[in-house]
């Protein structure tokens, strides 16, 4: 692991010594000569500064005034309690409890539209379950809560902190424990769906990959500053863009652009609209909610388009302009509306 504080003054560092002259005067292709030197801000070898070609090594000047300044207000216990939300591994475990059985219904309602009913992930949204034994697969390791995450506390923390995606910090702690228990149940980490997950039982859960992490072991490559004849010209094989990935992101943009009609509508729905229209969040009519959509359509489809494009504050909820994705064109938004309405009509 890197020692990040070895960059400050007075510590010993290694620099490549006299690299410029070494490579210009010698046929020896590799500059391997390094020396231990004492460093201040300017690299030195045997007390002489090494000049960096063509550039100035500058330094900042500091403001010298020191505190204490005594600005601000003391944070009260009550104020801290409202914001002190993080859950660590055995640290600040929240009140409440829940079971996987409780969590299943909540998960279906609040999580499944993105993560799938079994945590399999919809579209490109995170897969939450499965992947057991795949971490050693060099090509397609599947990092899920069950296969990868080291501590269940992270699941509790993140579920409460940032989920459901469009309405962070909306879950009660009971709901958080329940949904977390259900995700662990989907991963066969909790086997009894009536197991009461809480601060009291937290330590009964051991995540399968808890020991799968090591501290950063970089630098883990050891390239040298070879300057001449560094490899066999015959060994050079030129690899161009991977098949199936497209040669450039702009091409992918173009590919997306030629998708039309229902397919375009679905793509846009998946990427932008599903967050709310898949779950009914923020008062959004759900795709399959035919009655609500028909009510909306009574005012004319152009009105629905207009509200989708420009945004709308309605009686039941709020529609942000273009679903909050300002990159969408008017036609994109209309295609997404058509997709949702068509699905409602079916």
């Amino acid at each position, binding site marked *: 692991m890197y020692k990040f504080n070895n960059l*400050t003054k007075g510590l010993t560092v290694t620099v490549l010594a006299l690299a410029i002259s070494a490579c210009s005067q010698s046929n020896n292709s590799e500059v391997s000569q390094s020396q231990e030197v004492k460093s201040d801000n300017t690299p030195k070898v045997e007390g002489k500064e090494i000049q960096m070609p063509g550039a100035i090594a500058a330094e900042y000047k500091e403001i010298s005034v020191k505190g204490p300044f005594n600005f601000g207000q003391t944070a009260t216990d009550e104020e801290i309690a409202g914001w002190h939300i993080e859950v660590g591994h055995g*640290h600040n475990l929240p009140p409440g409890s829940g079971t996987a059985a409780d969590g299943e219904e909540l998960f279906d309602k609040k999580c499944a539209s993105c993560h799938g009913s079994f945590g399999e992930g919809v579209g490109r949204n995170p897969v939450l379950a499965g992947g057991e034994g795949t971490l050693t697969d060099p090509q397609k390791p599947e990092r899920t809560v069950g296969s990868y995450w080291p501590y269940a506390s992270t699941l509790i923390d993140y579920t409460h902190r940032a989920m459901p995606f469009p309405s962070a910090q909306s879950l009660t702690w009971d709901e958080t424990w329940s949904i977390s228990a259900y995700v662990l149940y989907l991963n066969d980490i909790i086997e009894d769906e009536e197991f009461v997950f809480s601060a009291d039982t937290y330590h009964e859960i051991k995540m399968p990959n808890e020991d799968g992490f090591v501290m950063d072991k*970089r630098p*883990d490559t050891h390239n040298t500053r070879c300057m001449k004849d560094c490899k066999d010209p015959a060994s050079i094989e*030129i690899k161009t863009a991977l098949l199936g990935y497209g040669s450039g*992101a702009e091409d992918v943009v173009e590919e997306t652009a030629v998708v039309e009609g229902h397919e375009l509508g679905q793509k846009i729905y998946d990427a932008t609209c599903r967050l709310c229209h898949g779950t009914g969040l923020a008062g959004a009519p759900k795709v399959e909610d035919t009655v609500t959509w028909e009510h909306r359509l009574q005012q004319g489809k152009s009105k629905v388009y207009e509200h989708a494009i420009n945004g709308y504050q309605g009686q039941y909820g709020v529609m942000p302009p273009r679903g909050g994705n300002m990159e969408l064109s008017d036609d994109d938004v209309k295609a997404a509306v058509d997709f949702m309405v068509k699905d409602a009509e079916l």
Partner: protein
Amino acid sequence: MADDKSIIDNETNNEVPFSGALENKASENSRRKFLGQAAATSAVIIAGSASAGNLPPDVPNWSRTLGKPVNTNPYGVPSKYEEDVVRKRVPWLTPDSIASISFTPLAEINGMISPNGLAFERDHGGVPTIDPKDHRLMIHGLVEKPLILTMEDIKRYPNVSRIHFIECPANSAMEWKGPQVGRLQFTHGMTNCCEWTGVPLKTILEEVGVKPEGKWILAEGADSAGMSRSIPMEKALDDTLVVFGQNGEALRPEQGYPLRLLTPGWEGNTSIKWLRRLEITEEPMYQREETSKYTDLISPRDPNREELIGKAYMFSWIMEAKAIVTFPCPEKPLKGHGKYIMNGLAWTGTGKIKHVDISFDGGINWHEAELNGLVLDKCWTRFSFPFEWNGEEMLIQSRATDEHGYVQPTIEQLREARGVSSIYHNNAIHTWKVNKNGEVESVQV
């Protein structure tokens, strides 16, 4: 945005037709009347000479007519001819456009600073709209005196301005298995470099009095992701800043307005944006963005590292040395034979860039480039190399060496050490293939 035919009325802030705006003002005083007439006249000239040449010996239209009034755009906007110089997204890269990323157009950046409007962003729960009057920074946990600071409080502390790069550890992540995105903006654009103004975190920690057992700091954002990372105390006391300024103005919303953390040289997500809370703790909190994400699952091919197959690096904070040629590149091909000056950017989270070497033959032979301008700690550093091109194919590479002697690796060396599925921290030497027609492709050798 105003175009050629309209301007923003400075008093009403409305966009109005160009000539109309001036004519209305013209009744107010004679100076403006003169301008109004000139504008009306110019409109005729423009309309009547649309096909006239702007090149010598002709005199361009813009030299014979008055320009727009001073302060037409009170904030200022780039020339309309630069409208393609913008951040871009790769739509398929993230599940949605809210927890997503935009890329800096590196080919168009001059010097060592990314302008605020072009600086890449990574947001995990969208960009919140925060009223600075209602923004608070809470510092608590293992401290003598927990504090709540307003933005005004924070700006009263002595501040510093530092030019540092930020790089997302997922920069170049699409390239582990092979070349995939054929533009510089997408291969390397998850980085920016700005002058950041803020208070050393050390100053604030001295105010609250950290208890001896306090070894880590949980930093948390006010966005809907509650973006959070555990930062070790050594980094907090070293060069970490609590930042409110960016390139001379307030932070842009997408960079954390009104307040962000800056952990120079470390992976960008540790520089928590919309910073609302710092909790001093004894242990790291193992947040989602330091366990599930931003850990490096490796599958080394090197038999000496076999025991690490299926293991993951945790707390892989430092961004290692990286250099990339920004001209020529796919967006900026060579046009015609003759002399050129290759240009590029190098940076390292370990300190200063010491050398950048250039290869034209895919890494067989190397030549030391010049470092240009300022060489600063954890900062973009410019390099250049003059060359003459006569239409031959070239495999251009650049290789950075940091001040500690670490040499930027090849992609094969990285694959030996980590396999191809670790997503983050791909700082491999990159290859641009210059074709005989001067066009440039992103390849690997």
